[in-house]
């Protein structure tokens, strides 16, 4: 494959699309699929065929458009229109609205802050291209970065570009991507691996799934460029088995890229070869930790091991291994296409680019969003999220999943970047963002996350295995109305111990929800242990206790 050949595929695809007067895109990613997006797609296809408009209307199934709560979504690109909550019965309305320009199902305005305030890099193709067709990806500048890189750039040059872009790991910890790449590149070993961590285990997070389902080739392209830069020949995509559609689309994508010579042996006629294989996760949260993930690919129980040595030096089968997250890989092609300076111009001083969040919980617009780093949490919740429904007040925003913290409403003017979120005790995390209103009890939320960590603890190190059990026991006691002020002291001690002595990120992060809720919502804990009940009215046990005290 040469650049000319690639451009020709893109040109042919664009010409073919231009022949159609109308482009109707139906979201068939998991969010809309669960509300019947596939049936809507079939119905619209049938309607178009029956009304004899097959040569005028292009109907395609696309990836996530973001506003999952209003799904299934249908967008008519040619007219800049979007319809929400579409049912198969409304297919005729969609089709008839094409020519008349009027009517159609429930309108979903696209000039509202939910869409207007976003900045899309990772999700630029999501909701626009058919994820099952490599030609559609190529028509949107896909694989251009890979082909150009192999033809024109040295591996060192690529790494320098990534370093200059300021890209940091999107898995949550924010380690500089370029630095990681150069560590792997510097090792003299013959055999190296590239792994894409798509074991998105945080409850309430579905960013990676959306990217894999909506634009799988972008991730493959990022992985191939990374392999070229660090000198790896083999790549693994470690995906959750719970994401069947993502796995299916990835398998299709790998096959297509292989066929066009964009993956496989001597890519683009060069001496660079790169093979990608999929490995299915099996529902262990701890496998998101890199050394546990490596153990799992090796066919073992997914337990972490102490670092160093870091996987960059000794990883999969003791070979140097580069592990990046899905979203990190998805950023690579745009950076190389548009240049490091372009990317570094977006975001804040230390956090460049954008971040994808799965916005959910007690907020009007739930779904997938991509925002520039540095936007405030308040802007995200009130403008993009459309505020809290039912006239309730926002109480807290939880970022970073079970290892992250609860950020109180009064801190919401904080910009979203790695350092700011860390400074108030939370973390960027992989991108789950759960909004909570007054109906949520923060002690109950802390218990929820602790229960998660307790059952997901792999059991290898004692602080995590026993500590999460004990902390959960105390929290359960408090929410049952049987806690005492001494429990809070003990809880704080345990948090400190588990955080500082656990082997991996799971244990080290497990106390964070407790620490942040105790820091910002201490009054709720006090109320539970003083027999004054649960202020939010969630913990039935605490309420009963309070009633007895009142008597």
């Amino acid at each position, binding site marked *: 494959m040469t650049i000319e050949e690639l451009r020709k595929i893109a040109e042919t695809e664009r010409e073919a699309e231009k022949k159609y007067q109308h482009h109707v895109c139906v979201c068939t990613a*998991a969010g809309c699929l*669960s509300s019947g997006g596939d049936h809507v797609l079939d119905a619209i296809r049938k309607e178009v065929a029956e009304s004899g408009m097959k040569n005028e209307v292009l109907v395609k199934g696309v990836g996530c458009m973001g506003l999952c*709560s209003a799904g299934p979504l249908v967008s008519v690109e040619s007219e800049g229109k979007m319809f929400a909550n579409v049912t198969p019965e409304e297919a005729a309305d969609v089709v008839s609205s094409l020519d008349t320009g009027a009517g159609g199902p429930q309108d979903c305005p696209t000039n509202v802050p939910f869409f207007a305030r976003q900045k899309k890099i990772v999700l630029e193709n999501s909701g626009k291209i058919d994820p099952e067709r490599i030609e559609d990806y190529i028509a949107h500048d896909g694989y251009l970065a890979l082909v150009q890189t192999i033809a024109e750039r040295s591996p060192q040059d690529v790494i320098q570009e990534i370093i200059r872009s300021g890209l940091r790991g999107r898995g949550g910890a924010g380690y500089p991507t370029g630095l990681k790449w150069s560590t792997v590149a510097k090792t003299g070993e013959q055999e190296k691996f590239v792994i894409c961590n798509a074991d998105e285990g945080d*409850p309430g997070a579905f960013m990676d799934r959306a990217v894999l389902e909506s634009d799988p080739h972008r991730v493959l392209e990022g992985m191939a460029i990374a392999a070229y830069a660090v000198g790896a020949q083999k790549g693994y995509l470690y995906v959750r088995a719970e994401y069947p559609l993502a796995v299916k689309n990835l398998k299709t994508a790998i096959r297509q890229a292989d066929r066009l010579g964009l993956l496989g042996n001597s890519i683009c006629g060069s001496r660079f070869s790169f093979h990608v294989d999929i490995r299915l996760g099996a529902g262990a949260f701890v496998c998101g930790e890199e050394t546990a993930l490596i153990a799992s690919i090796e066919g073992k129980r997914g337990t972490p091991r102490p670092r160093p040595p870091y996987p960059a030096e000794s990883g999969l089968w003791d070979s140097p291994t580069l592990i990046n997250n899905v979203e990190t890989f998805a950023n690579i092609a745009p950076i190389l296409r548009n240049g490091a300076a372009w990317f570094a111009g977006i975001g804040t001083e230390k956090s460049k680019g954008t971040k994808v969040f799965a916005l959910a919980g007690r907020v009007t617009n739930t*779904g997938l969003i991509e925002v520039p780093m540095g936007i405030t949490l308040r802007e995200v919740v009130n403008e993009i999220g459309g505020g809290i429904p039912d006239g309730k007040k926002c109480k807290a925003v939880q970022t970073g999943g079970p290892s992250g913290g609860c950020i109180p409403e009064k801190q919401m003017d904080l910009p979203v970047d790695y350092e700011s979120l860390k400074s108030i005790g939370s973390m960027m995390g992989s991108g789950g963002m759960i909004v909570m209103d007054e109906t949520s009890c923060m002690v109950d939320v802390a218990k*929820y996350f602790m229960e998660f960590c307790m059952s997901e603890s792999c059991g290898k190190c004692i602080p995590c295995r026993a500590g999460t059990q004990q902390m959960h026991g105390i929290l359960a006691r408090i929410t049952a109305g049987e806690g005492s002020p001494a429990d809070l002291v003990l809880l704080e001690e345990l948090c400190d111990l588990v955080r500082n002595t656990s082997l991996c990120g799971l244990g080290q992060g497990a106390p964070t929800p407790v620490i942040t809720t105790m820091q910002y919502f201490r009054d709720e804990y006090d109320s539970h242990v003083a027999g004054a009940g649960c202020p939010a009215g969630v913990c039935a046990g605490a309420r009963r206790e309070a009633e007895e005290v009142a008597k």
Partner: protein
Amino acid sequence: MLTYLGSPQLPSDDKRWKIVEATARRHGRESHALIETLHTVQECFGYLDDSALKFVAMTLRVPLSRVYGAATFYHYFTLKPKGKHTCVVCTGTACYIKGAPALLGAIEKTYGVKPGETTPDNQLSVLTARCLGSCGLAPAVVMDGAVLGKVGAEQMLARIEKGIHHDH
């Protein structure tokens, strides 16, 4: 120590074992194919029983203890057969704060089964999911593969009843 040269005998002449065999073969019977092979078994048979674990151990030439270790470590694998119908309640954060505990409570009250259990008549298995990723539809329930979004307890119970009685 199990030392087998060549491929071990299939546990029965059930054709599904050949699919399992094929997965092992595709990975060159290397021990790192363990999880992939267990996935295939579960896909074919719905769960992992003793004969399956033993067969996988012999095929990949790994100790049975390691196969058992992996099968019990990963939540996705189940050693027990499921009931005729399955109802999965999502307990992800978004679903949790929007009422998943109440949904589980309603199921327990009506059918007397907790998450991970199956009704004595083998009709319904109740499971929980860490997160379905359908947070926009919270709280979400999957009944026999169909997702019910923004669901209330009564609506969910009606759907479960419908699913069970559909067969009769």
